[in-house]
């Protein structure tokens, strides 16, 4: 509720600035950052805050990622949703202090596909939530973060 109000206020502010010609139009985007969701400290809260409290496990969400990441600062993840009519994908790194990492909406012919590099503080399950037809679907992969050597 609180977050919603803040968002609305921000949007109003941005619209005002925009109208007065002080700001590049892009700045209006600031209003669409879901602060409450990104501030969630547990995977459950993160799910709740994106409206996906109890998503259905799905085999149609494919997560391509290395099971061992030699460095947690860059963990590449490739996501494809084969759930029909998927309109958004969210990425949650369960053990991160703030688990929600990204949420992308797809429209106008964009495929529900995303490649992204994420930071992982430690070994963790990485959960993907897809939204399709008003329902949420999920799949997860466990990724181990190791301590590397000195080389390369």
């Amino acid at each position, binding site marked *: 509720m609180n977050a919603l109000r803040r968002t609305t206020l921000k949007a109003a502010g941005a619209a005002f600035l925009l109208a007065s010609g002080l700001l590049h139009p892009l700045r209006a985007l600031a209003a669409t950052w879901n602060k409450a969701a990104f501030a969630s400290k547990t995977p459950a809260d993160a799910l709740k805050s994106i409206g996906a409290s109890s998503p259905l496990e799905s085999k149609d969400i494919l997560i391509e990622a290395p099971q061992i990441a030699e460095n947690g600062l860059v963990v590449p993840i490739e996501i494809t949703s084969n759930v029909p009519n998927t309109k958004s994908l969210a990425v949650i790194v369960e053990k991160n202090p703030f688990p929600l990492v990204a949420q992308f909406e797809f429209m106008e012919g964009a495929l529900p596909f995303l490649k992204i590099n994420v930071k992982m503080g430690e070994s963790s399950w990485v959960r993907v939530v897809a939204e399709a037809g008003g329902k949420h679907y999920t799949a997860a992969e466990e990724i181990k973060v*190791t301590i590397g*050597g000195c080389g390369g």
Partner: protein
Amino acid sequence: MRRSSHLLICGLAAGLAACATPLVSERPAAVTGQDLNEITSVLKRDFKARGIATMARVELDTLQQQCNLHRDSPPAELAAKLEAEQMKSIPFPSGSLIGDWKRGERIAQNGRGSMWSDQAGEPAGGSCYNCHQLSPGEASFGTLGPSLLRFGKLRGASPEIQKYAYGRIYNSKAYNACSQMPRLGHAGTLSEQQIKDLVALLLDPDSPVNK
């Protein structure tokens, strides 16, 4: 241009001394005292002190000199002599050499110490996991050295074993003259207490190494 024509001539004139000896990357077959002097003067010219890594480090001590000269395989007699000298330099503490394995585990995990990026007086690590397997819970271990899993379980913790473990960490060259393992006590990287803590990691029945 110059080089390609040179190569062409080499190709045509294979057999000419300069061209017929391809560069080989294998270890030199022999190292002389003069080679060592030359390399040391190159290091003196081309390296510079930084932080705690002083230029004194490019000077070779007797052991380094002999290992370089003999390409890490000194004749048995020389090896025995070098090992005896190194052994004499180990100040074995009296009494139990077993410290705290929990501290030992942290020292084993820590890869810092004695680098120019380290501060003098900061406690160093032993870099043990860089080369050895120790606690079974640590999957990220190196293999340059042997696995030390169950080290104490297999050997017990008698005073002799304690002394061996302590000495081996303090100065591994006392046991194998040209070992690749650093002389962690001799080099001043680890303190007496730190080495005792590592001995505990290896020998204490409660240490994860022996679980």
